[in-house]
């Protein structure tokens, strides 16, 4: 489709508004399942608004998508929030990295609501260190074999497909031996999905997936073999966008619809009503907190001294009382600045005066620096009192010239 043929956003909005008014159920109507709602949108040309037509989309832009969902919000209509991950994150990633074959295979059913997708990135042994994935992908003739486990996959127990980050080359550096592959999650031998129970006692939306030598077609690979980290980066980009409610994951304002416990004005009103006697203004609170610290810090020193005497505490505990008392002292002067305002820093008479809060403030700054900065005290507390690992020291056992050269490379 060329530029002339593209429907303007305003024309699209008007057309969408008419359809929404006629066909899209209200939040107060009976709840429509995600898949059915997605199908309804698809059948009327409103699914995958910014996806190419060849893959089942509307061939328009993200601006058109935004217009559609703004209109749905304005008319208080149901939107397929349960499909946000498929539409906002997985679909766009396949669009960015999938082969023509993969796009034709996976995108139309995704946009039609036939397949729900999830990401399979984190593992039980690795969350933040995602590139440390150890789920194994091995080429075996004309197929791949997947072995390992993933965790924290939202909605995996309901999903049809997952996009799985796995290690395909164990000899390459960490980020260069990863691949991304689509994994069917239903009716495939070797896959077990276990829902995670959350701390609240509720069944969470998360689950853990176990892959026991699962055989997958080669065409399911998304992106090149060993280029999975680039695909993962794209997926994370779309995830951030979706979480931030922009891009492909935009489904209208979020403070609409059912079950808004902690967002939106009604929730704030009920919070305001539930509020109990918080007559503390912020300066008053700072004063009380300063007072509390002024009671606790000397008691802590007394306790440490007693501990030194009976042998439960070592001399290094001085780091703890130093940290505590200097933080408390500085906070107390900050409180005084708040309480005194201009009277603390401006005075009558041309002589320089020193008996004011402002001078005390300047003087107090040294407390957290002298005698070993508080950052060093925190190192000492964590390393020497608690036995946590020492900071790495690349300068140890290395000629100094090399240390300087190496340091500039960090």
């Amino acid at each position: 489709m060329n530029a002339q043929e593209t429907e303007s956003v305003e024309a699209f909005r008007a057309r969408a508004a008419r359809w929404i008014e006629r066909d899209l159920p209200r939040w107060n109507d009976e709840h429509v399942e995600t898949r059915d709602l997605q199908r309804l949108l698809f059948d009327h040309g409103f699914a995958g608004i910014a996806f190419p037509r060849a893959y089942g989309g509307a061939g328009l832009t993200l601006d058109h998508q935004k217009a559609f969902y703004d209109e749905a919000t304005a008319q208080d209509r149901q939107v397929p929030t349960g499909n946000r991950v498929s539409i906002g994150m997985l679909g766009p990633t396949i669009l960015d990295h999938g082969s023509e074959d993969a796009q034709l295979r996976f995108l139309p059913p995704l946009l039609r609501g036939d397949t729900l997708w999830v990401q399979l990135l984190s593992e039980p042994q690795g969350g933040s260190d995602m590139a440390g994935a150890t789920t194994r992908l091995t080429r075996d003739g004309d197929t791949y074999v997947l072995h390992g486990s993933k965790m924290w996959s939202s909605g995996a127990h309901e999903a049809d497909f997952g996009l799985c980050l796995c290690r395909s080359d164990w000899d390459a550096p960490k980020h260069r031996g990863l691949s991304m592959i689509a994994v069917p999650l239903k009716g495939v031998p070797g896959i077990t999905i276990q829902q995670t129970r959350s701390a609240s006692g509720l069944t969470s939306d998360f689950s853990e997936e176990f892959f026991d030598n699962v055989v997958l077609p080669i065409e399911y690979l998304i992106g090149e073999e060993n280029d999975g980290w680039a695909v993962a980066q794209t997926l994370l980009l779309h995830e951030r966008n979706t979480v931030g409610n922009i891009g492909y994951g935009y489904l209208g304002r979020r403070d609409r619809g059912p079950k808004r416990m902690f967002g939106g004005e009604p929730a704030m009103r009920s919070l305001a009503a539930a509020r109990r006697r918080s007559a503390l203004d912020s300066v008053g609170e700072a004063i009380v907190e300063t007072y509390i610290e002024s009671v606790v810090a000397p008691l802590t020193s007394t306790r440490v001294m007693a501990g030194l005497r009976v042998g439960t505490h070592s001399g290094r505990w001085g780091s703890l009382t130093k940290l505590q008392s200097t933080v408390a002292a500085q906070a107390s002067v900050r409180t005084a600045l708040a309480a005194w305002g201009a009277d603390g820093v401006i005075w009558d008479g041309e002589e320089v005066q020193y008996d004011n809060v402002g001078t005390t403030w300047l003087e107090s700054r040294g407390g957290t620096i002298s005698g070993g900065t508080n950052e060093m005290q925190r190192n000492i507390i964590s390393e020497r009192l608690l036995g946590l690992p020492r900071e790495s020291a690349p300068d140890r056992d290395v000629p100094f010239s090399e240390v300087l050269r190496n340091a500039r490379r960090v």
Partner: protein
Amino acid sequence: MQVELSEAQELFRSSSRRFLEAEAPLTVVRELYDSREGFDRAWWRRAAELGWTSVLVPDRLGGGTLSGRPVADAVIVAEEMGRLVAPGPFLPVNVVAATLAAEGSDEQQSSVLPGLISGELVATWALCEPHGRWDVDAVRTTATASGGDIVVEGAKAYVEALGAAEQVLVSARSAAGLTQVLVPLDAPGVHATLGRSLDATRRFGSVRFEGVRLPRSAVVGNVGEAADRIAQQLRLALALQCAELVGVADRTLEFTIEYGLERLAFGRPIMSFQALKHRIADMTVHLEGSKAVTDALADAIDGDAADVERFSSVTKAYVGTHALDTVDDCVQITGGMGVTWEHDIHLYNRRAVVDRAIFGTPEEHKHHLLSLLSTSEETA
């Protein structure tokens, strides 16, 4: 818990810890989650045998302090209970036992107190009223003399161990002033509504008293003279609660550090990252401060110090805030596992949240302190 324990106190601590580890480990706490009372009565009688219910009661009444400082003894158990988020009505039973020991009638001391000490009987206390405060001034429930009887009318809320208790010590208002009445929960006109709390094992409930007519002998102490006693009960409860919170924070920090030393990311234990080490250092400061201020409160109560009221608010404001913040920081460090049912940290989170809320939130105590500070400024 003091850094320096007497030999008897050290034995009390180690036997309490062994008992909890053997008979109330976290697996048992999880099993009790689904139980009605949240603890096992036979287990509670064994706990009582260790002395858990007797340190606040003098020798002549069948109890006995270990060190001559009863509250310093009691906080030892409270802290150990916090370390394993233990079940059982330790706090309410001790509050009632201490009250009956101090000013119960001969009859109360001979018919109720021995059962509390042996663990056969469970009693609880009721100060706060629905949506109210733990504050003598907020008491609206009445105890009115009527012939030779006393009639209790009103409602109490957030009553711990209500489902297990046989008796409840009620703070009420009479014409002469504040009065406490020991009400059997099966008395006519007592309507108990059992509830639960976020805590895994600690059960609460609310009670309505509709024309509950009891013999005058149900009054504890003198009619109209209970205000000081109620304030003492609250301070004792705060000391035990803060000691428990110290145990909660201490143990949570311990197992979080252990976890962080095992957990690898980017080729190193996550506990080697300075961002985490510095957080741990700050938490350690708050933990040590919490221990110091809680011990000082126990001392102040035992020594009947003049500023004990102000001190109890300082303690709750500090410990209540930092214990939950520490658990919360540890959840963050534990990562995804920390928000699962499977990981034990939510049991600690639950205890810390409930303890923070009852007997006055840190915010309420700060508010109280601010008014005390403002008053003393005016009179100075």
